[in-house]
């Protein structure tokens, strides 16, 4: 059994300046993530998804003011005891707006920025950059300005620029929300590759549930700061009533299966499909 790399124990967080009648951003959240797991986090806007991300990489409580109770452990150590810079080397973060994350003059400098801030020796940085450029397929952009790239390419550079810090966990907060479908797909592909080939632990916040369903091992559903569902995609999507209540759709194929089952009585009792391919395979049996 794989080791636990990230653990939340009864974490409650309230941002400073939240009005009295406002709720806590996170309320008594407990969860643990194993090494190499690919976790999708979904929920309506303001459900606490971004807050959860910020806790993984120590931005909360280091850069945000508010009240924290409970503990977050990364690789068995409490984030309160890990210096922020060191934590940055263990948990890599990618955000929604690709341009706002990039600050350097060339892609080369962008990739070097993180490790050089950690004073990693020069040869080691070069080695990591070479590897990362190959994995991410961004070698062609090496000397270009990050700002001359398309959104999808920029987001790849942003991911690459945290990869060079060799984190074990990658936390991505809506990395595709500013991208077009081609960009979105290429980012999903690269994240999947990092998970499958490089064995990275992935925490992904997204709205693209159908696309996520193809890749993730596990979904965590947040609502009003609380974890309301946590399990494999099949387990989670079987709670259609919960999804309806919090205003998120399950994948259309799951919806179709469920309607066929409940309304038309035409489902054969097997598990509902999660992805389009599962549904098509099922149909092919009888076509």
């Amino acid at each position, binding site marked *: 059994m794989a080791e636990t790399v990230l653990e939340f124990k009864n974490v409650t967080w309230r941002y400073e300046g939240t009005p009295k009648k406002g709720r806590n951003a996170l309320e008594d959240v407990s969860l643990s993530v194993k090494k190499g797991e690919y976790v999708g986090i979904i929920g309506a806007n303001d459900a606490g998804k971004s807050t959860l991300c*910020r806790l993984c990489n120590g931005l909360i409580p280091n*850069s945000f003011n508010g009240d924290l109770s409970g503990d977050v452990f990364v690789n068995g150590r409490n984030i309160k005891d890990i210096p922020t*810079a060191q934590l940055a080397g263990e948990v890599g973060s990618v955000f929604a707006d690709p341009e706002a*994350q990039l*600050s350097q003059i060339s892609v080369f400098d962008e990739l070097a920025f993180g490790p050089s*801030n*950690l004073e990693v020796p020069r040869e080691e*940085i070069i080695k990591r950059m070479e590897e990362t450029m190959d994995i991410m397929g961004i070698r062609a952009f090496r000397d270009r300005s990050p700002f001359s790239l398309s959104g999808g390419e920029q987001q790849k550079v942003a991911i690459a620029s945290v990869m060079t810090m060799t984190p074990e966990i990658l936390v991505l907060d809506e990395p595709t929300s500013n991208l077009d479908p081609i960009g979105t797909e290429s980012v999903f592909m690269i994240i999947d590759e990092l998970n499958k080939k490089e064995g990275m632990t992935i925490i992904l916040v997204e709205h693209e549930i159908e696309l996520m369903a193809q890749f993730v091992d596990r979904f965590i559903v947040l609502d009003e700061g609380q974890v309301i569902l946590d399990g494999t995609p099949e387990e989670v999507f079987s709670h259609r009533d919960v999804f309806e209540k919090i205003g998120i759709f399950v994948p259309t194929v799951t919806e179709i299966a469920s309607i066929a089952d409940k309304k038309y009585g035409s489902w054969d009792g097997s598990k509902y499909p999660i992805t389009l391919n599962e549904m098509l395979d099922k149909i092919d049996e009888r076509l």
Partner: protein
Amino acid sequence: MKDISLYIPGNSFFHRCDCRVKLLFIAVYTVIAYMFFTPSVLAFLFVTAMVFNVIAIGSKAFTHLMTKMVVIMMFFLIIIHGFVNPVGVTPATVYGHTITLPFFGKYTVEGFYMGLVNWLRLSSVILIAELFVTTTSPAEMMSGFHKIGLPYNFCFMLSASLQLIPISTREANIIASAQRARGLSEKTLVDRFKGLVPMFVPLVVSSLGRMETMSMALESRAFGNTTKPTELRDSHFKKSDFAAAALAIVMLFAFAGIRAVYGSLDIVNQISSIRDIFALSFIGR
């Protein structure tokens, strides 16, 4: 996206040259230019700087923005000096070496001399600076600034703000479109003035949003962890760098020697016509 830096990629001697050597050249040229008060030495600096530029970027050296600036300055400095005598009482008023131009009035020979000297001085410095900015990529420039001792945070701020200019410009354009599409009138000056608020507020709001992400991203990449991040670019001088640096230093000492022996070679007291200026400064007294 439009690149705002003045860098012209290439592979000339000066492109390969270490950024610090180029900064040394700027320093040496500036010091020499202000040691002398004669067109001959300054013309030497001017011509060499121009030749360097041509070697570095070819014919673009003549059309580059900074070269154009030098040409514009020529008109202003030489004409203004000739007419207004910026140093007040000059030998011209004493000796009366003036040329009377129809409609324009008196143009003093000594004023011309001073204009010429000042123009050559400034343009030599500008042209050698042009060599620096056209042959040094912004990335090298930043690491160069850091190498010569400017604080890392300062260099970062400088480069990050350079990056922000095109983004903010593009954003400002989108916001302008957004407000025009809401019927913001742009017919009169008053309209345009009123339009500043609808332009300004969204620009600030969106910049603040970006700043938040940016600061989180920087923190996630350990920015601020050290004031001495690992230097990635080759910081060793190559042989050619040593040679170029030596040349600069030799130049500095040679001209310092000339200056010590002959003084600043100021001949403003001896000229009585424009012909004199060239005769005296290039052929000798």
